[in-house]
């Protein structure tokens, strides 16, 4: 059982969720409330990572952030080491790759808030910020929660992108998915099976717990 890899995966998923949560709320809300001519294009671009094969995506990430890129250069200058093949590099890729999961369901959640309710909130003297906290989030949170659950589980299972730009470095970029792959290649079927089962169990437990919690809250809030 590769505990390092497991904690690495959990850490990656946790941080991805932490970064995408505010982004999900603000972007989902903005897209839900505004109508503009380029909206279709923006929505399509948000969905783009979903239609790209993970390896293609990883390849583009390498090009965009690798040694020979402006971003990679700047990172090297700032921090003294490469962005790719590091945990931070994985995190950047993970955040981008999970954008569709983070934004889409959240957008749907905010779209479900009736326009009249938002207008009523404004007419009650609630500023847009207070309206978000007191009125809109309490109504839109199922969408946001779905988004975060999807991001978490998707990141836990992500393989292709991490393989391309991670380098499978133990303790740094060797997530549990890659570790399982490694075990299989090393003919350690038992090890692979144990880790796979653990991963499935954790994912299931997280998702189930989250949805049970949300159902209970949902019942109370009506």
């Amino acid at each position, binding site marked *: 059982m590769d505990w*390092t890899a497991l904690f690495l995966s959990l850490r990656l998923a*946790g941080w991805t969720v932490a970064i995408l949560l505010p982004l999900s709320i603000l972007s989902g809300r903005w897209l839900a409330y505004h109508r503009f001519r380029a909206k279709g294009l923006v929505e399509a671009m948000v969905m783009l990572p979903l239609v790209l094969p993970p390896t293609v995506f990883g390849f583009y990430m390498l090009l965009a952030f690798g040694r020979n890129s402006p971003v990679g250069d700047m990172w090297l200058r700032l921090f003294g080491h490469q962005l790719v*093949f590091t945990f931070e590099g994985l995190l950047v890729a993970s955040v981008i790759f999970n954008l569709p999961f983070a934004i889409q369901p959240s957008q749907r959640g905010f779209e479900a808030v009736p326009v009249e309710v938002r207008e009523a909130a404004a007419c009650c003297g609630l500023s847009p910020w207070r309206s978000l906290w007191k009125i809109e989030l309490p109504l839109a949170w199922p969408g946001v929660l779905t988004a975060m659950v999807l991001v978490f589980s998707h990141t836990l299972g992500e393989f292709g992108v991490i393989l391309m730009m991670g*380098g499978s*470095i133990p303790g*740094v970029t*060797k997530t549990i998915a890659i570790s399982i792959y490694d075990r299989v*290649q*090393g*003919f350690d079927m038992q090890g692979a099976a144990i880790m796979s089962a653990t991963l499935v169990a954790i994912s299931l437990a997280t998702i189930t717990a989250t949805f049970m919690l949300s159902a209970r809250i949902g019942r109370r809030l009506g």
Partner: protein
Amino acid sequence: MCGETYQLVLPMTFQIRRRAFFAGLAALGLLAGPLLAQDDVPVIAAASDLKFAVTEIAAAFAAETGMQVELSMGSTGNFATQIRQGAPFQMFMAADERFVAELHAEGLTRDAGTLYAEGRLVIMVPHGSALTPDAALDNLAEMLAAGTLTKFAIANPDHAPYGMRAQEALAHRGLWDAIQPHLVLGENVSQAAQFALSGNAEGGIIAYSLALAPEVADLGEFAVIPHDWHAPLRQRMALLDNAGPVAEAFYAYMQTSPAREIMVRYGFVLPEGT
């Protein structure tokens, strides 16, 4: 009165649950932090055919010196690309010296490196396969001619040295064109072994060093392919620019007799003069 209290408490409960959720996330984030603190434990990029051999050598190295190394297994070609992109490996053990030479020419290695072994190919089949392994690949030729071969695995000739050599061997035997539609390509020679022995293919051409590992040997039968059927697998290793003292020590250890003995046990041929 009770109803009023319930109403006051409920939004608070929601707040608490929300906060608990975020706290849980943060805990996850902080978790594993200490686990990843690294002292100088260098990561060695090793070609997949070395999987079992170098794992044993690393264990012996740790036993003797108390120093640890981390091993990353994969295809030689992929490693070369990643090293060019700045992957933080400190030592590269390639299955084909050409890749080391290229990196050296680009100034990414400390020197031209050292030849540490010569590899061999075997044809291996899982138990119960319709194919029987023979060094001259006669049975393979028969099955191809009869049209009864379904799938045959080799490493990807584009970037895996064992795949390139497998192609040469098959071409030498005159089977390359005929076998094309039946090939399954592994991303590296380990994966090729996976495909060859998982029961989904009749067999494959893989590294001798893998076939000799107990985990693999139990799964089927093999025969060593004549080494003059293909260009030699001259396996070269080199320290990379950022190599530290532990990596240097391991590099040196690879050339000592304990390490060499292990290599021989795994079917590697030592370079002349060692």
